[in-house]
């Protein structure tokens, strides 16, 4: 399917066909990172700015590596030393960057909707690397890429997303993407962490982890933010781990081949015990590896790449 979108703001705004286009394009790029010279010219001459208003290690490293392996010129904006501290607005900051004829801005921001706000106001492509509690589309794309590698077609597959759904952009992007590709999604967590009326997004809700996973093909264990404990959204991490963490004992009652995912970074002993995180069902490091190919595909497509030619991938 042809790609005609300037930006990647969220999976709500993509069709199933467009999602599959990204995933299929990613498969073609995945081989690049296995070469001894890990570089192709697909984005040669293009400029990408990584504008991170929130702390990030893996997403930022992954984007940066993806850009470098595509031969883009890149600038990393360190927010601590940027104009934000001088009171400049987000839009002014980005308009100033765009005055350098930037092709792509990869942005992470603490406020939901910030990437869409920018996309309406500037000509450069905006790639959402996580906005508030709204969407984290490239994370969901790499989760789906990983699932497709393991399960093939996702139609009719059952995926559970467990944890702080209310505050999770990963959950929202996965819900949009998975339901568009025909998977059945159940969100699991304490009622205080399940946002209101989420059933209307086409998912089932469960407060019972083991019941929800009984017939699941995969489970995505979200990171729990330690601050939530203080807001009385749940009494303690200890109780959370007992009710919603995956331990070796609980795994014993689940389908043998269930795929365990986590967007990272893991709170070991809370969402996942060490034995599950490092165990045979875990695909956590494969998710990280796949993130490169998925982000290369996204950057390629938003900069106008429609179909992949051999010269894009030549060394």
């Amino acid at each position, binding site marked *: 399917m042809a790609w005609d979108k300037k930006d990647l703001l969220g999976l*709500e705004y993509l069709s199933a066909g467009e999602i599959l286009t990204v995933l299929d394009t990613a498969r073609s790029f995945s081989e690049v990172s296995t070469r001894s010279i890990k570089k192709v010219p697909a984005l040669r001459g293009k400029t990408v700015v990584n504008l991170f208003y929130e702390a990030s290690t893996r997403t930022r490293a992954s984007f940066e590596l993806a850009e470098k392996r595509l031969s883009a010129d890149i600038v990393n904006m360190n927010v601590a030393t940027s104009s934000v501290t001088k009171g400049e*607005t*987000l*839009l002014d900051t980005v308009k100033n960057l765009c005055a350098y004829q930037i092709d792509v801005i990869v942005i992470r*921001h603490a*406020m*939901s*909707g*910030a990437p*869409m*706000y920018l996309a*309406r106001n500037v000509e450069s492509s905006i790639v959402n690397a996580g*906005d*508030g*509690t*709204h*969407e984290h589309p490239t994370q969901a794309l790499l989760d789906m890429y990983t699932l497709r590698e393991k399960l093939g077609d996702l139609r009719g597959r059952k995926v559970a997303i467990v944890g702080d759904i209310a505050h999770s*952009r990963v959950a*929202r992007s996965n819900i949009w993407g998975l339901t568009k590709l025909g998977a059945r999604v159940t969100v699991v967590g304490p009622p205080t962490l399940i*946002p*209101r*009326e*989420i059933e*209307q*997004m086409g998912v089932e809700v469960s407060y019972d982890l083991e019941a929800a996973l009984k017939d699941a093909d995969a489970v995505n264990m979200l990171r729990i933010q330690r601050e939530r404990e203080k807001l009385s959204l749940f009494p303690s991490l200890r109780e959370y781990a007992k009710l919603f963490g995956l331990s070796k004992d609980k795994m014993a009652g689940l389908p043998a081949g269930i795929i365990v995912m986590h967007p990272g970074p893991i709170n070991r002993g809370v969402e996942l015990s060490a034995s599950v995180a490092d165990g045979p069902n875990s695909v956590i490091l494969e998710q990280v590896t796949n993130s490169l190919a998925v982000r290369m595909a996204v950057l390629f497509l938003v900069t106008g790449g429609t179909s992949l030619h051999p010269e894009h991938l030549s060394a």
Partner: protein
Amino acid sequence: MTTVIRNGHLLDPAQRLDGLGWLHLRDGVIAGSGLGQPPAGIAADDTIDATGLLVSPGFIDLHCHLREPGEESKESIESGCRAAVAGGFTSVCCMPNTTPPIDHAAIVKLIHLEAQRVNLANVFPIGTVSRNREGKELADIGELVKAGVVGVSDDGNPVTDAGLMRCVLEYTRMFGIPVIDHCEDPMLSNFGVMNEGVHSTRLGLRGIPTACEDVMISRDLILAGYTGGRVHIAHVSTALGVRMIRDAKARGVRVTCEATPHHLTLTDAALGDYDTNFKMNPPLRSEADRVALIEGLADGTIDAIATDHAPHSATGKDVEFDQAANGIIGLETALPVVYTKLVQEHKLSLARMVELLTSGPARVLGTQAKGTLEPGADADIVLWDASSTWIIDATAFRSKSRNTPFNGWAVQGKAVRTIVAGETKHKA
């Protein structure tokens, strides 16, 4: 100075007047009125031919923000009054969240002086409940009433202290003025930026539950019933709120309330692309809430349509959604939006709409002199065209601000001539 308005369709719900007729104005007061043609003997300095137009009492807005003193870059008494008369409003009640707030008689005097200088619409200031709107100790309400405030409110800030709310409801009984409350329990709204529901879930924006408004409305109704004070619920937005007010009225509680044109015509589904012109507090609610508000208009539970005209500059609105200021302007869009979306679509009768903009708010203010075309009433009149279609264009507003969700709407209903105390203050 005498004027005769003839050939217009008089529509004055206060007198159940509905038909082609005439009005005779003398020295700022309505001297006579009737159906058909004026009697031959009436002499007038000026004759206005209102053929094809509706002639109603001038509209009264119980809730607007004129921003003066303190934030004149967003609006001033002059620009706000220009917007008012352009929208058919002859009287506006301005909220006290100015800088400094209207918590002292001197500020009331300043607003009156400037309104007199501007000489467009009648401006009725609302004083604060508490000193500096801090919700701690009562403002000098007696002095404020003497200076001319028509109600008290800490608008924008709810009165969170139930003890203070009890005191102000009791204290104001001797003045007969309403205590106007912005009902919100801040512990429940918890820095929310839009209605809590599937759309806040989808957009990942922090939700403001209907419960935060309902809990406070319920408290206010209990306290008004207990003290015998008068409470006016500002911009009610929830279905349960309307139901509780209906029940309280039936029990004899002295409660009135208002709803805004935007809560009556829009829902939280409109926030799809984080457009900050749809951000206000209380937020746009669900369709079920909107339908309940319209029922409340029709059955008399809701007493008035009020704009909550809240001007903001682009600096306050052209930012990330979380950071954007709350509020939209409404004086120049209230009539066309309500007429087009409620009356034209048969949700509300034309007479009831006019009542909600005229005698309804006049009753809340306790005035007999306004909100009607009865002889002896002030000659505050709007001549308006219900038939021709026009496009709302924010760039053409008289208001200094442009923050409206209705820009570009094709609407019907436009004030053609607005008369205040017998003098024409706006002519389209």
